[in-house]
Each structure stands twice: as C-alpha cells, then as structure tokens.
C-alpha cells in the first residue's frame, strides 16, 4: 500500500536539530571553540532628568582578555542606547538589527522612537531563539512618555526598574546601587554613582576590567562619555620606547610575465541561452 507524502515547506526560525548532538559531544569531551564573551559589568539608572548607562570595557575569550577597550554601549536610536553583556557577536548583531528596524519604523511613522518599541522588538527576537542568542541587555532612553530603563534576559523576559545591573559583575555593582541609590539624583551625582558601580565591578570581578564608559540621555539629547574614567593605565612602559620597521621588509623581487604561460584564444563561441 503506497503512502502519499505531502511535502511541507520547512518552517522558518531556528533549527534546533544539532543541539542534542552538541550536548552529546560536549559530554564526551569535544568542546566547541570558545567564543568572545564580554564578561562585563553593565548598569543603568534613572535620575531626575533622564537615564544614565554605564559599562566596563573588557572583552574576554575564555581566560584571555582579547579587547582591553571595547565599546559595550550600543546605539539604538538618537534617544535610546543599549548596554550588552554575554556573547559579543550576539549583542552586536541583535542591537544592530533592532537599531535598523527602529530607523525603518521612524521613517514609517514620522515620529521619535519609543523605548518600549525597542524593548518589544528585542524581547520577541530573543524569545524566538529560546535563549540561544546569548545577549543580556540594559536598555535605556528618553522618549515622549518620559525616561525608561529596562533589563532584557537571554530567554526573553524583561524587567522595568529604576536602577539595574547585568553581567558577571552585576552583584558587585548592585551592592553599590542598593546602598547609595535614591530618587531624584542630579546629573553629577548620577554619573558618580554609576562610575562607582562600574569600578566595583572592574575591581572585584575577573570578567570586567579596564575603563568606564558612560552615556547620559536626557530629553535635550545625549552625551556619550567614552572612557570617562581610566583607572587601569599601563603601569610599565619601556623608557627606551619600542621601535618597529616603518614598512614591510622586501626580501626578494621576481616578476613572471603570465602572457608566456597562458594561451589566449581570440574569438570563440558566442554565449547562448
């Protein structure tokens, strides 16, 4: 008896087919190559005029620091910025993607983007990938409805808070916030508190380090203070300096004209469909 099989087109979305195989291999000791993670301390807080976001600048590849001064505060819209922790590729890709979607949406509606729009786009994407897109984000911005601060977890859940921390250094930073945060901070007090929280992560967490980046967003505009504080300068530099040759050294020059090696056929068949 023959059975007729109706071919259904493959459904869109992530294919989880290889996940079990990967788990089985990991148990046998075959590990996938380690990817670049931002160990990270990222924080955000709401102050009287808007939102302040802060981040450290260390990117790690396993035990090695692969980037001593990376940028973890990503642009989403002129009035919205997003700090990212987790796999660096995932945070970059997801924030870039949603930033483009927001711009298209701005063209479509003719209005300034709202923070909840960015929030919904991000959480839907992350939920669809069931936590495999390893991006933990602190999203902050000021729109017509006021200042907003949200945290987004890799599985797609979100929280709305007056102050938030994420990343491996989040416990150290949260300790600072819980002791010193109050409502109605001024801009300088807010920057000072965010810097303290990030420094707490930098000095107490191995996955965070180097410098402090700050981004202040208010109704009037935004201020991106890259490397606002650099508490880890290079302590030992050679007094003689380092010298490197100015251009690539030429060891040998050999020119082989190819015309002698290749037969050139003039004319030939015309291409036909």
């Amino acid at each position, binding site marked *: 008896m023959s059975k007729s099989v109706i071919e259904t087109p493959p459904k869109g979305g992530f294919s989880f087919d290889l996940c079990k195989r990967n788990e089985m291999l990991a148990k046998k000791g075959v590990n996938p190559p380690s990817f670049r993670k931002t160990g990270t301390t990222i924080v955000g807080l709401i102050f009287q005029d808007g939102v302040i976001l802060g981040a450290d600048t260390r990117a790690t590849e396993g035990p090695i620091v692969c980037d001593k001064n990376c940028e973890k505060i990503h642009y989403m819209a002129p009035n919205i910025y997003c700090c990212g922790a987790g796999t660096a590729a995932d945070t970059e890709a997801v924030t870039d993607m949603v930033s483009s979607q927001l711009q298209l949406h701005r063209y479509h509606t003719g209005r300034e983007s709202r923070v909840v729009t960015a929030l919904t786009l991000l959480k839907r994407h992350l*939920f669809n990938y069931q936590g495999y897109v390893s991006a*933990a984000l602190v999203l902050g911005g000021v729109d017509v409805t006021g200042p907003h601060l949200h945290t987004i*977890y890799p*599985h797609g*859940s979100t929280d709305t*808070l007056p102050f938030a921390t994420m990343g*491996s250094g989040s416990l150290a930073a949260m300790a600072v916030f819980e002791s010193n945060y109050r409502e109605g901070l001024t801009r300088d007090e807010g920057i000072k508190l965010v810097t303290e929280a990030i420094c707490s992560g930098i000095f107490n967490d191995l996955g965070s380090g180097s410098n402090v980046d700050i981004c202040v967003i208010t109704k009037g505009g935004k201020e991106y203070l890259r490397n606002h504080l650099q508490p880890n300068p290079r302590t030992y530099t050679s007094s003689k300096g380092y010298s490197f040759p100015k251009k690539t050294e030429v060891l040998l020059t050999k020119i082989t004209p190819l015309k002698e090696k290749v037969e050139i056929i003039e004319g030939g068949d015309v291409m036909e469909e």
Partner: protein
Amino acid sequence: MDLEMNLNAPHSMGTTIIGVTYNGGVVLGADSRTSTGMYVANRASDKITQLTDNVYVCRSGSAADSQIVSDYVRYFLHQHTIQLGQSATSKVAANLIRLLSYNNKTMLETGLIVGGWDKYEGGKIYAIPLGGTLIEQPFAIGGSGSSYLYGFFDQAWKEGMTKDEAEQLVVKAVSLAIARDGASGGVVRTVIINSEGVARNFYPGDKLQLWHEELEPQNSLLDLLNSS
C-alpha cells in the same frame, strides 16, 4: 559550598500567587521576587499583569514564557473586544490562556491564575497550571510558595467574604508563604477587581506581620540609612 551562579540562567519567578473570589468580585495577590538561580534578579517585580480593563492574570514559572503568553493573550483579547463590541469576559481570557498553554505544553513552563469581573458571571477565578488544564475555582493558589498554603486555605477560606476580609486573607497568605519559601519574597501586591473597577494595593515586606520565630529587625541597614 558551590558559589557558582549562572547569571544567564533562565529567569524563573519562584513565586507565590493567589486568586480569591468574594461577594462582589475577586482579589488577586502575589509576591515580587524574580530569581535567576540563587540570585534575586528583581526584588520588586509586578507579577499581576493586565489583560483587559476588567481581567488580570497572575504569572508564575518561567518569566519569559509567562510574559510572552500574557502579551499574546492581551493582543487577542483586544481584537476580540473590537469584534464583540463590548468588554471581554474573564472566561474568554482564561480560555485563550488555556489554548496557548495546552497547545504548546512541551515548550512552555508557566502556571497562571486568571481573575476578572464581568457583568454576566460576576467575579471569577480560573487556574491554568503547567499542563494547560483550565479549572474554575472559588479560590486558587500557585507557584512554589503555594505548597505551604494548601492547609491554610482549607481552614481559613469561607464562602461569601467581604472585600476587606478577602484582601486581608490574601495578604496574610502571601506573607506566610514568603516566610517559608526561599523563592518568594519582597513586597505583597494585590489587585481588587469588581463592578466599580480595579484597585491596586502595595504592602512593603517590612510592614508585614511577624510569624513564628521571626524577629523584629534590629540594627537594620534601612534604619541606619534613614537616620543618616
């Protein structure tokens, strides 16, 4: 002691959620703790989410799953309200939640309690636990903290309570669960829904009644901070 914490572990709301009917409406109550493994990710979360003007849902289980389910149901109910021409009933809301929970039972991990008031049936509570069963009850409890409340409700629940009695019962129950369940804590939030509308209340954790062996705070950091 293994102190390794996976801070990117899926967010679960340890939780205690309660829904109780009274003479004239319903009272929903919940704690406010969201945990990632052993770390409290949000100590003041709001687990009672609005679906329509007159129907709310208490969420427990995976934070991501319950947020997405309630977002979809809010969207469907909005469309339904437009098509129907009047406010949706709590039975329809509960049914939509049940359809999503049951049809995706292998992928979702969420226990929900739907409570609302409509002009046809008055105040109703519907429980939709893990597998996607829908059960209408005069009161419902859910979440990890509910294990400690089954006996309490068997003894304390009465038919035909007033609004204040019902709310006091809910606050007392959540407070007892918080005392015994590590995954529940923070503040107690309640939502009262009746023919007049919706009222939200908030009971901070340090103002709750003390239970057996619980001590008065002494040299509390809060006092030190407030005095400085």
